[in-house]
């Protein structure tokens, strides 16, 4: 049962991706919704039948596992499995894909301004789903690399094919930047495999660096760190992100921020910590310093940012900084830090996806995401503004919502390290964590200005290609008069994300309990 589900969550989206381009828009919608729903249910089903954990906790002991030879000449095996660290991310991916499909099918389909290209976009979403879930379930580093690589081309196509006016440059930057990352990853992975003599992640994690000299570990670690840092993105390797987010269509931004950045942090946690523990330990302070720099720069740039999508992109830089701060403390042996990183990762995925769903709709209807052009949004589309406010509040870490735990506890983990430098990191991170509220309130302030403030002219073309209930000419600024300015697709996409944000906020322990054994084993291997 577990094995079948494991294969199904990769096979169903892959099949859907193959079939969809052959269908007409109508049929494609039905197929896409069914495939996404099946994948999501399947990913939830993986929770069933898991063993209660081995007697001695190991860094990687999958609940379910499929292992078969693939390309024997390259010693490449199709070895996949799932455990408490990867499962939440698989579910997050499946959930966001489902939300994206619902968003495209029931609402903003005309974002592409061309309904005939909808099946193609849906297909690309499913390719991305397959690749990203593949990364999370890979138990073979070569397979991990293959899936990691597979995410690039479809995301490039989504940005270049459906993006905003500056899409070509943004897509190119994305491809070259992350392509470079893949290259570094390839080098790191091949070095690792050639030196360790195996590509099996379970063996590699269990060995805990035994058989790899400290120097080799450092070299491999440097390659992997750079590769994953570009993906995460860790400042100062982040400049592809704002452009990609600003230009990508809504679903592109959602999947990019919600899942793709997590490939980087997941890779760090899975591939470097247990596999190269000595290198990780000695680099911990450096990663911590860079993470804190990212937190500071992200917040400051956001405070001077005038465009909403760029603002959220830069806030992602800051939030991922917190995740990496947690990771850095984990590399120094902190269990709390690793748990904070896992939670921060998940929370950022959910909350940023929510924000991008809202902002995508806003910028489409108003023709701009410039803050000054959005004055009066609160009056014209109260529910849109309310969702934006909720997302902002969750994002700046209101205690009791999902964003709080990861940030507060990465600060706590850094403080617990006891060293002066770690304490400096903790204090700086805490100051910024509280300060983040300033830039979100600054953004919301513009939206709350009275509507008499000049409003940006919304796109006339978008109105004409109206297969989108919100785009009827009599609704001011392109917002639907009913349901506070949201269309059903947006409501369907946003509602589950709001619920998950609340649940993760009130009861983060559920997710942590699943990963508890793996977390203590991983940090145990570092110390």
């Amino acid at each position, binding site marked *: 049962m577990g094995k079948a589900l494991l294969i199904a969550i990769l096979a169903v989206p892959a099949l859907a991706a193959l079939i969809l381009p052959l269908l007409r828009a109508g049929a494609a919608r039905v197929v896409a919704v069914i495939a996404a729903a099946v994948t999501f249910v399947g990913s939830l089903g993986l929770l069933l039948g898991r063993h209660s954990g081995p007697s001695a906790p190991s860094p990687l002991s999958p609940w379910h596992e499929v292992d078969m030879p693939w390309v024997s000449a390259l010693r490449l095996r199709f070895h996949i499995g799932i455990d408490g660290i990867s499962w939440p991310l698989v579910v997050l991916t499946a959930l966001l894909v489902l939300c994206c499909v619902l968003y495209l099918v029931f609402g903003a389909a005309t974002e592409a301004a061309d309904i005939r290209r909808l099946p193609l976009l849906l297909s690309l979403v499913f390719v991305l789903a397959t690749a990203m879930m593949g990364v999370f379930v890979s138990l073979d580093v070569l397979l991990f690399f293959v899936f990691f690589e597979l995410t690039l081309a479809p995301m490039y196509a989504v940005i270049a094919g459906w993006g905003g006016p500056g899409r070509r440059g943004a897509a190119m930057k994305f491809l070259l930047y992350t392509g470079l990352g893949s290259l570094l990853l390839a080098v790191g992975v091949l070095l690792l495999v050639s030196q360790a003599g195996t590509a099996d992640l379970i063996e590699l994690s269990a060995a805990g660096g035994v058989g790899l000299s400290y120097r080799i570990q450092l070299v491999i670690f440097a390659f992997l760190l750079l590769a994953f840092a570009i993906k995460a993105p860790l400042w*100062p390797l982040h400049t592809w992100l704002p452009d990609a987010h600003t230009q990508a269509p809504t679903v592109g931004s959602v999947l990019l921020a919600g899942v793709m950045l997590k490939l980087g942090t997941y890779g760090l946690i899975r591939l470097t910590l247990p596999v190269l523990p000595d290198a990780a330990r000695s680099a911990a302070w450096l990663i911590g310093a860079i993470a804190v720099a990212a937190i500071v720069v992200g917040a400051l740039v956001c405070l001077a940012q005038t465009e909403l999508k760029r603002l959220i992109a830069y806030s992602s830089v800051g939030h991922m900084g917190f995740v990496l701060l947690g990771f850095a403390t984990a590399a120094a042996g902190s269990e709390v830090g690793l748990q904070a990183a896992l939670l921060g990762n998940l929370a950022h995925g959910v909350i940023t996806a929510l924000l991008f769903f809202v902002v995508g709709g806003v910028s489409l209807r108003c023709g701009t995401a410039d803050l000054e052009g959005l004055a009066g949004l609160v009056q014209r589309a109260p529910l849109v503004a309310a969702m934006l406010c909720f997302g902002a509040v969750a994002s700046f870490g209101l205690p009791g919502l999902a964003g709080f735990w990861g940030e507060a*506890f990465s600060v706590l983990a850094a403080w617990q390290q006891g060293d002066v430098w770690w304490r400096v990191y903790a204090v700086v991170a*805490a100051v910024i964590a509280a300060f983040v509220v300033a830039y979100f309130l600054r953004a919301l302030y513009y939206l709350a200005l009275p509507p008499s403030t000049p409003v940006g002219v919304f796109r006339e073309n978008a109105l004409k290609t109206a297969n989108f209930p919100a785009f009827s000419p009599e609704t001011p600024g392109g917002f639907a008069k009913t349901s506070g300015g949201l269309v059903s697709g947006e409501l369907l996409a946003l509602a589950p994300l709001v619920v998950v944000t609340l649940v993760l906020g009130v009861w983060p322990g559920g997710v942590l309990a699943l990963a508890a054994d793996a977390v203590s084993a991983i940090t145990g291997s570092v110390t």
Partner: protein
Amino acid sequence: MIGQIIAAVLPGAALLAGLVGLLLPRDARRAATWLALSVTGLLALLALWCAIDALGSFDVIGVGQAPIDLEFSPATFGDLTVTAVLRLDGLCALVSCLVTLIALAVQVYSTAHLANDQRYVPYAAQVTLFTGAMLLVVSAGDLVTLLVGWELMGLCSYLLIGHDRGNPAAPVAARKAFIVTRVGDIGFLLGVVLLAADAGSFRFDELGAASGVTQTAAGLLMFAGIAGKSAQFPLHTWLPDAMVGPTPVSALIHSATMVAAGVLVMARLDTVFFSADVVRVVIACVGAASIVLGAGAALAADDLKRVLAWSTISQLGYMVAGLAASPGIGPPLFHMFSHAVFKALLFLCAGVVIVAVGSSAMSRMGGLRRGMPITAACTAVGLGALAGLPPLAGFWSKGSLLSIAGEGAVHGGGAIGFSSWLLLGAGMAAVPLTAAYCVRVWLMVFAGTPRLSTNSTVRSAPQDPGWRILGPLVALTIPAVLLGRAAIYGQLGGWWSAAEQAYATDLFVPREAVTPVLDIVLTLLGGLGAWWLWRRAQSLAGATGAPPSLDVYVASDPARILGRLRPALTAGWYIDAAQRALVVRPLEALARAARTVDERGIDGMVRGIGRLVNRAGGVIARWHSTLGRYVTLAAAGAVVLVLLTLVVVGAQS
């Protein structure tokens, strides 16, 4: 069991009702009203029952015997378990009672005050949520639950202050309120982290395990958060601006929620805050500074609501400095109760007056006692209590603080003695100022000859409003009169036994009977002085026989005695301007610089490298397409990879 259910229901029901209310459609006015009123009313009854149970001997719930804890563990981080504790004890029961009763008064009042407001439905829900957040702070038994309620309250105050969509000042003030309190919360959050990391627990009753140094550091850090929420110097600047919010919201923020939260948390965590002398002294200094600067600015302000806002800062200063000076939490908490009652009353009265006149500037009011006698009487009681006129509530509560400070100054010694001297000095200095601005408010608003409003939207002469507004006013007037005596006989659960035993004195008839006498004398001096200044100008104007004009009113304002000091006081001692110049502006400049460096510098470098690569790539220009370039990169990478592998493997062998 029943106690635990109540512990969950008190904050839970209000929070849930608030969330449900937010989901109601905009035109569901009736449903929103009923939801808000019924939930707040039922919670008030429940809290009353708990309070009676705690004070009396009816141990149905058992609040009086021992604290009742309801626990839930949201997560375990490493070996640090986060335990959310809702604690129902005597303090929780009494403060819940205060919170829910004032919230009920505010909700009833709001149904009439916001009768023509398009956004009443979300407003009512937000007020309920606000109440729930305060109740969560009140019943929190651990730092995480406290943080949740604490920040949720900040968020609600942000939403409520920014309620008025037509006023461009509202979003500015709302943002300022949230950010300034959040600046204090930097310290609060860090303090929580320090305490939890050292004590290994978030529970209040296990924080004692933290080392003395940690407690001192955490006390200082967390006090920054207290200063933000309780509007103490120098983080008080949000409070006067927050007056653009609806008046009933001001009543709530200034009485039983928000500002009271800071004082309450200090009382709850007194072992952390007052474990070290240095923290005690810092807190006393901040409190004393707030007492004086608040009273001074209140004397100068022309806006009725701003006068009340400054007076809140001053009165909260009494409580904060009182906590530092008092060996027990009784006297400051007593003042918190009586202040909550009379300040809520005063704001609700101010709301009536402002609606009637169409302006909140006192220079546009006057003579209103004829048209609205009930409002005038209620305001007089509220102002009397604020000034500390016997036998009103404020006299007893402020008196108990001053007498404990008097005893401490003479017999305390050490940090307590120093704090007591500070409180005694600042408190006594502010007593005549307080009396003067109270008299000034009453004279400027209600006394004199009636004047026609300059606001054309108000057609009829000002009148007392309907029962939905007068009801809450009268209901609050009763405790503003009686709370002092009731507290003395009730002894409020023996709260001040600690303070009284420390100096072997009766708080209300202290050994050194100097303080009550001095208090009364200074009050009369300040009040009569203000009256004399006003009277003299009025009789001068009356002698000329001219009709009352704005000039006469400005000329008869007792605040004229401030002379050249007045602009400085009106501008809040220029603290706002200083904060803008020293903090906000530099930060904005830094942010712009960071953006430029990031977009031009780092990204510029990346693009530069890109161009270089492109130029170099001209050699292999056969691959024009994007994917071609990608393949090129991959191929180049493969070469690098092979070389590196060779080098590394070679180095190994």
